[in-house]
């Protein structure tokens, strides 16, 4: 199954009953899967909206009405959704937004890239907010993280972004759908259903009173702190005896793993830290690793965005190497292994000196 279809199928199995989307490559298979599949579910809603702006606002309405709601897009469409994502965060409404990234800026192209890291991890829209960002590295993990995404969205009542790329979306891999553990019941005291037998409810983000708005901001901030405390996810690979740690996420991490296996055969002790949550970012494991080794190699399919978080984590410690391929170019594991090897040898030499 393609990553796009797998994400759609997992969403349906996770109880998503409302999907709104607008066509854009490389994520169309997801919208197309939902067009067929979600309407088979009782109460399932599918709309091909007139724009990404409309789609995210339909998500907002569906979420306020109590549904597990999702939308998906890529680069240019995700930019259009940012206003709505800001409102979802401000209104404390759960939703899942999938971004299968492509080369940018502007129209860019439709090839896989990691160009939207900063947009996704810094909120993306206006105002002081954050979204949880999950970065799967395989079709199986993409499907698994969809359940996680919906649960996190409901737990924190906050939008959650699944950040993949065109390769993850379009590649075919075997996938098994864990029949998700029985869904937790989440309190739904915010849902609009008509004020029957209860006081009326309002969902709003307009707070003219600066004191009230400030308090709302701090309330959201405390929620984000909880996420930072509880929701960091990452994977390490051959890190224990490593002299150099590669940092990469998503498909780039998959390429890096291939490269690292080759490097190990050459006798170079290279390991991997793969952030699964890009926000909250796995700061601690990087800081702990910095006690063991000094060389960090950041690999991204961009000119360097996650590297900013790595720098923040290291606080000036260690030496950061970087290799980036923006624009939809995907280096092979062999290519990457050669570059990492060169950096390894260089740093071994400079250490000897």
């Amino acid at each position, binding site marked *: 199954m393609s990553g796009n279809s797998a994400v759609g199928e997992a969403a349906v199995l996770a109880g998503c009953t409302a999907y709104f989307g607008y066509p854009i490559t490389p994520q169309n298979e997801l919208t197309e899967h939902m067009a067929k599949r979600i309407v088979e579910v009782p109460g399932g809603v599918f709309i091909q909206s007139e724009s990404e702006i409309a789609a995210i*606002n339909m998500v*907002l309405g*569906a979420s306020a009405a109590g549904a597990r709601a999702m939308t998906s897009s890529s680069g240019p469409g995700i930019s259009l959704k940012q206003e709505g994502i800001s409102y979802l965060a401000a209104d404390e409404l759960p939703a899942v937004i999938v971004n299968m990234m492509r080369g940018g800026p502007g129209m860019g192209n439709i090839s896989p890239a990691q160009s939207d890291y900063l947009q996704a991890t810094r909120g993306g829209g206006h105002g002081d907010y954050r979204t949880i960002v999950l970065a799967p590295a395989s079709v199986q993990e993409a499907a698994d993280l969809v359940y996680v995404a919906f649960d996190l969205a409901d737990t924190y009542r906050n939008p959650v972004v699944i950040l993949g790329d065109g390769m993850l979306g379009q590649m075919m891999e075997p996938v098994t759908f864990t029949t998700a553990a029985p869904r937790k019941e989440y309190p739904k005291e915010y849902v609009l259903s008509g*004020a*029957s037998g209860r006081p*009326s409810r309002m969902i*709003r983000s307009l707070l003219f009173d600066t004191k009230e708005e400030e308090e709302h901001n701090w309330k959201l901030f405390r929620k984000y702190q909880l996420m930072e405390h509880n929701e960091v996810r990452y994977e390490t690979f051959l890190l224990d005896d490593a002299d150099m740690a590669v940092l990469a996420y998503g498909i780039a991490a998959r390429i890096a793993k291939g490269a690292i296996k080759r490097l190990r055969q050459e006798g170079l002790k290279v390991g991997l830290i793969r952030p699964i949550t890009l926000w909250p970012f796995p700061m601690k494991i990087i800081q702990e690793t910095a006690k063991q080794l000094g060389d960090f190699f950041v690999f991204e399919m961009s000119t360097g965005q996650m590297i900013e978080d790595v720098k923040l984590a290291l606080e000036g410690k260690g030496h950061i190497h970087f290799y980036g391929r923006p624009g939809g170019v995907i280096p092979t594991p062999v290519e990457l292994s050669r570059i990492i090897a060169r950096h390894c040898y260089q740093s071994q030499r400079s250490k000897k000196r």
Partner: protein
Amino acid sequence: MKTVYCRPKCMKEAHFHYCPGCGHGVITRLIAEVVDEMELRDKTICVAPAGCGMLLYNYFDIDTIESAHGRGAAVATGIKRVRPENLVFSYQGDGDLAAIGTAEGFHAANRGELISVIFVNNGVYGMTGGQMAPTTMLEQVTTTSPAGRDSVLQGHPVKICEVYATLDGTSYLERVAVNKPAAIIKTKKAIAKAFRHQQQKTGFSLVEILSPCPTNWKMSPLDSCRWVDDVMTKVFPLGLIKETKKC
């Protein structure tokens, strides 16, 4: 003693923030009266706009959500599709529906979404201080058309009802006003009719209400009411624009 006038049950005890002579207050109250009379409070969900109507949730004692500027019809669509048993209406100004939210309104109408839009046409952007709207009259002076609206540079007033009438998804479109008692009674009937169309699932319903804005028109409330008749209705003729089925 017989009560002939009181606060509608589905209104909170709050003071309107609307300016003196503004039509929004009348329209807000009319909606509440209709919701009461049709006994819809328990099932109604209101979508408030960015615009002078944005504080509706302070007045309505019904479930209400704020939408981003212009996105009301999309938000209402999301709600209604998930909760088809509820009555869902979106309250929008002319900047909201006829400028920034053109696509959302047009396509909700074209899909025949079973929602109602209460469209307040006051010919200006009230909330932000009286800038030109898509519905501003030709030659009308606003803060961003200081020489008067010029069709060559700024286009012509947009007639939402007539545009929507061409869409097969729409089932009820009527233009009314709130500048005098008889007109207000008609407006109330039109709102009720829009809600009935929604209940009977005939299609998308919209009531366009010509509404005075004395503050930004820089006129007295009385002159504003006259101006609705003398100037606005010449471009925006009142009456039923489309009804596919009697409701």
